[in-house]
């Protein structure tokens, strides 16, 4: 296969990875019925903290842990505001995202554009030798391998384990979860925190690997919102979420490739805007009745599969409060 194509695919997987990790984290949270809207600010702040901690300690591992701690704490603020203080989760998360983004730029102002530790790619032995698949998926950084584990792990957890049933029930119908002996608000705290820690991990993946270093304005600004949209695009299902992240990153890389091709003259600004426009159109499509109309045109055997794959029902209790009687 074409060397150039493999390099491009490899770069798509690498670029998509922080999005994958962040949107899997948000899926964990939203599956428990909590909306953590602080994603964008959380990623930026944890990227900064991760970079600075790695720089100060000289150890990237410390950086990763610090970033996860920041992401987890930010999410717990949303949980505290939404569950304990009974405030609107969307409002708390939104304010928090603005605060965190600005705080990151303020606290990180002395660390911009300086070299620091990085986590380099570590090809996985044996599997990297598989033709095509090896070079694309297994000559990557540890973050990418973690993302694979997260995607399959979350799928297994949600759909194949007993605690996964409780996890989903808390997000779907907390009154039922309560009746079955599940401690609804405790679980919501836990999953919000875990999801937030993964968002922090995504921040570290940016500042220690994909977009190594720290700069102002932050190079990953806006990606948190994309991750939120990818969760919706992915229908809260890990496999579709990862597909959405790869699709989005693919469009971005494609834009870069076209930009470098001399014969094609498409304005840079337009190319950069394409993924966002595509995201809006996709979200409109999956959340409107258009899909259903489209499905009816398809041949009958394809209908059920298409409908299941494209269905996008959010967890029924998403964003709501639960108070046991």
């Amino acid at each position, binding site marked *: 296969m074409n060397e150039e194509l493999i390099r491009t695919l490899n770069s798509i997987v690498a670029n998509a990875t922080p999005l994958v990790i962040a949107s899997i984290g948000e899926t964990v949270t939203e599956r428990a019925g909590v909306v953590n809207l602080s994603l964008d600010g959380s990623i930026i702040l944890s990227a900064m903290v991760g970079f600075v901690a790695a720089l100060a300690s000289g150890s990237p591992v410390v950086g990763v842990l610090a970033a996860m701690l920041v992401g987890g704490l930010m999410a717990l603020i949303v949980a505290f505001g939404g569950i304990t203080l009974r405030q609107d989760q969307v409002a708390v998360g939104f304010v928090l995202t603005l605060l965190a983004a600005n705080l990151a730029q303020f606290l990180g102002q002395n660390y911009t554009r300086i070299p620091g530790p990085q986590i380099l790619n570590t090809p996985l032995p044996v599997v990297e030798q598989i033709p095509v698949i090896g070079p694309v998926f297994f000559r990557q950084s540890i973050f990418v391998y973690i993302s694979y584990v997260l995607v399959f792990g979350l799928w297994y957890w949600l759909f*194949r*384990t007993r605690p996964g*049933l409780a996890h989903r029930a808390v997000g*779907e119908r907390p009154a039922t979860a309560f009746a079955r*002996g599940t401690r609804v608000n405790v679980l919501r705290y836990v999953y919000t925190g875990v999801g937030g820690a993964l968002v922090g991990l995504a921040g570290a993946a940016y500042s220690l690997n994909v977009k190594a270093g720290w700069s102002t304005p932050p190079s990953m600004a806006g990606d948190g919102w994309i991750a939120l949209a990818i969760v919706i695009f992915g229908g809260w299902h890990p496999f579709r979420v990862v597909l959405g992240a790869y699709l989005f990153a693919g469009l971005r890389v494609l834009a870069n490739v076209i930009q470098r091709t001399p014969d094609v003259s498409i304005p840079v600004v337009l190319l950069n805007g394409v993924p966002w426009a595509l995201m809006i159109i996709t979200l409109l499509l999956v959340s409107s009745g258009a899909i259903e109309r489209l499905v009816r045109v398809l041949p009958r055997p394809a209908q059920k599969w298409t409908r299941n794959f494209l269905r996008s029902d959010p967890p029924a209790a998403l964003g709501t409060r639960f108070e046991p*009687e």
Partner: protein
Amino acid sequence: MDIELRHIHKHFGPVHANNDISLSFRGGRIVGILGENGAGKSTLMKILSGFQPMDGGEIYINGARVDYTGPQAAIRCGVGMLQQDPLDVAAFTVLENFIYGQAGGLALKRREGRARLEQICSRFGFSLDAETPIAQLSIGQRQQLEIVRLLSQGVKTLILDEPTTGISAEQKTILFNALRDLAARDGMSILLVSHKLEDVIALCDEVAVLRGGRLVGTRDMPATTSELVAMMFGQELPPQTRQPLNLEGAETALVLENLTLRGKRVTVENLSLRVRAGEIVGLAGLDGSGQEMLLRACVGLIKPAHGRVMIGGENLTGAPYRAFLARGVAFGAAGRLEEGLVAGLSLTEHIALAHETGALVDWPRARRHTEEQLRHYNVRGRPESRVETLSGGNQQRLLMALMPPRPLLMALEQPTRGLDVDSSRWIWQQLLARRANGTAILFSSAELDELVAYSDRILVFYAGRVFEIPDASRASIDELGRLIGGHFDGASEA
């Protein structure tokens, strides 16, 4: 399993929902828990099954005192409750719902779960496919699943809250056979909360009757419907004096022609009705029997599946609510704060919303108008008070003030719900005054004496079927109670 409840008390705000209730249930028997809406039966059962904490009292199981911390703890003590709207998760499959809540390790053990599910289902003739999503099941099937799940968790006392609402006759037969079998062969106690006397008579060995939060008494079955009604509703009220009504030559306010309304749980089919100006039609029935749908269809809030709605001779079928309002229809919702008023707005703002028609609000005039209206309608509240700070009675009076003074038709959902006797009487004075001016009134109520006292005609709804009592002045509360419970031999179907 023997259960004893001692001196159970439960308050909701000012309402004493359970007042010193002591009761005992023996294993192997099916006991009906009877009472009107708001009698306290659901509250008592929720306390027994751990869904609600009690304010005072004790529960003994097989002689030992128990203290629950929640529904799951009650299930471990052997008491499980099937809620009216089964507590399951719509996004789960049947098997996932069955497994969720049962003890076990990390793995789902689907094969074991499926075997157990199928084993219990086959005993009772339930047909549940393990991989079907809950969202595709009927209420009757969801109930079956809950029963199967509770049995699998080792429940020895099964409480069912209105289990026959919204299920088919066939499913009811299957359910009743299963309950009889569980009582007879497994020695389980079955507690059936129901309004439906025919179900209680068909199934129960014993009944306990609650009224106004207190235990009226228990008795062994069989008992006749009228004996049960007497226990449920107490003695009959003295007959009300009413104005003789002369509808000769009165204009027609509302005509329904072959109206079919499809709801989630009930379908009202092929109903025809003509209401003349100045006529009061009461709608009786248990919550969710179709009377709410009918009221809302008369004001354009629900579109009928078939048939026509005519207001003052004009066909408004399918027209929007605004068109109904413009023709002189007024609607009063049961949820006063939820649908009738705007919580957060002041009384003056409400009056301005209803009566100021220009683009700009003349606030001094709106305030003067509000003061007048508050005096006239005897609302105890200041013009600048927020509406949610008013008592229920005052909110209802304000709603009256907001309605047009001489509507052609008023459609009112439970206009006196939760009001004390004085407020109710005042509301009815107002309504009767409007009726004297030629307003036709359609109202629903859970109070049988109110229906009998004020209606010219009564329509009784039972699971979407409608029976007419053409002359309400000759109806007795006893007769009405039996119709509401589904005993309509000899009554004419509308």
